[in-house]
């Protein structure tokens, strides 16, 4: 295909990083722990695949660790940014019906969630 030269290049770059990953950067146990923090239910096959993929990606991302940037200020906005202020006035907003229209489960004028506190009618 056209572009084979660059593909070879990219493969070689990727391979170099995979090869450098002598020690494992992330373990399956860590992936399970991150999944809990991220509120993501993953099946065992996903855990296995993500462990392998994240390991490779983190290996590549380590390029940035070598950069000497201790004296550089972190950049959080692409353009100079002063948080604009405005008067705190009541304006138009969504009606309750509009706010609830996409809720998978609702009860009267509320979003419905599983019970989080014990009480009458079950735990």
């Amino acid at each position: 295909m056209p572009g084979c030269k660059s593909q070879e290049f990219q493969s070689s770059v990727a391979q170099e990083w995979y090869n450098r990953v002598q020690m494992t950067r992330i373990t399956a146990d860590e992936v399970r722990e991150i999944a809990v923090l991220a509120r993501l239910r993953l099946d065992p096959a996903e855990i296995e695949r993500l462990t392998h993929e994240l390991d490779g990606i983190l290996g590549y991302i380590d390029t940035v660790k070598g950069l000497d940037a201790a004296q550089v200020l972190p950049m959080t906005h692409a353009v100079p940014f002063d948080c604009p202020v405005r008067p705190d006035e009541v304006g138009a907003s969504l009606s309750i019906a509009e706010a609830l229209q996409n809720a998978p489960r609702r009860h009267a004028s509320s979003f419905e969630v599983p019970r989080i506190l014990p009480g009458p009618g079950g735990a």
Partner: protein
Amino acid sequence: MPAPDLRGAALTELAAGTAAGKWSARDLVETYLERIAQLDKKLGCFLLVDGEGARKTADAIDKRLAAGENVGPLAGVPVGLKDIFVTRGLETTAGSKILKGFIPPYESTASARLAAAGAIRLGKLNMDEFAMGSSNENSAYYPVHNPWNLDRVPGGSSGGSAAAVAASLCAGALGTDTGGSIRQPASFCGIVGIKPTYGRVSRYGVIAFASSLDHPGPFGRTVEDAAALLEVIAGHDPMDSTSIPRPVGRYRAACTAGITGMRIGVPKEYFQAGMDSEVENAVNLALAELGRAGASIVPVSLPHTQYAIATYYLICTAEASSNLARYDGIRFGHRTASAASLEELYAKTRGEGFGAEPKRRIMLGTYVLRAGYYEAYYGKALRARRLIADDFTAAFAQCDVLVTPTSPIPAFKLGERAQDPLQMYLADIYTVAPPLAGVPALSQCCGFTAAGLPIGLQSIGPPLGEEAVFRVAGAYQGRTDWHTRLPRDPS
């Protein structure tokens, strides 16, 4: 009255013809809907076609025109919206199953401005799930095929937008660009796409992926078409606190202003080993053409380019892991069938609703933001981001616009890279730095490979330097005819 032959029609001509009564808005809409019905089964550009809504809008515009009203600069122009722009009353999914069935109760600023200018929304365009991808293969619904070769990807994440404009299924389209998602598909599909300065186009109503990097912008067949769309959607919006309160430039006029005396910088880091030889040749020929058009070519350096991909993927995944926390099965979108606790409801809903790429990025983002890793990864990336942005500031002290390839390769085959996420990320090498710096960047066609695949040329300007970018892109287009070539309709 019959609508004109839409293949290759310029958006600006369509608007002028409608306003002058040469054809009706309804004629235009019917002709595009007919093309979509005939061709989109092969291409997969649209996730939703709103024929009824488009006809209704067209009839209203025709009525206003008949009454002598000025309906705006995009009178009757049929456009498509990447399905990341929320549309009041019309399903919006961001290419994800987790938002299937979501009917937004409000409208994005960019799409509202298009409508106010007289444009007609044909439907919602396919995309990589939550704009995460470079091939459109991460759509949770179906992939998009490149109109120039159906076995190839259209690029991503705005692949549906780029392919639809290239195949003349709409006259123009909106997309978003976080690390190249407008420019790379524009390059792969042989059309024009511009990522404006960060804050130039409002993000209000654009489903968030990485908020400090998300840039809405237009696709057009020509630089004038992209300029006409950008003039309409750009400008300050109080609903987006990062929106820039500065007047919008005269982008269309800039397309024909010429480049005599302009200095075009060529960053050496964008011309190193790894570029496809046909891409390299085409870009070098384009630079020579720009020289003949009156610009001087200046070698420059962007020394931190080697850190751009790692920096980009650290920042975008960190922001994505935070932004995508809202999909929890409670207020909108998918909700798991049964869960005993709130915790389980979140985890099952998200595990079922997200596809592989959002899961990968949420996981990576959560990892790099974790206590103990934050400074080593995310903190380092924010510092690297400043060095990358400072590179652009230094380069623009020596030149007015930078010109580079858009992608090191032309469109690749569907499935070719889908199994290796790192391979996919590395192909973003020329597009990730401009969003990190927030500077405007445009892609246009500068040739074709021997196999008939388009090659993209990228022009990058300083902050709010869209007019300079359009001057260069317009001058190049004026001396070449690549933009007049059209893909054959799929049979």
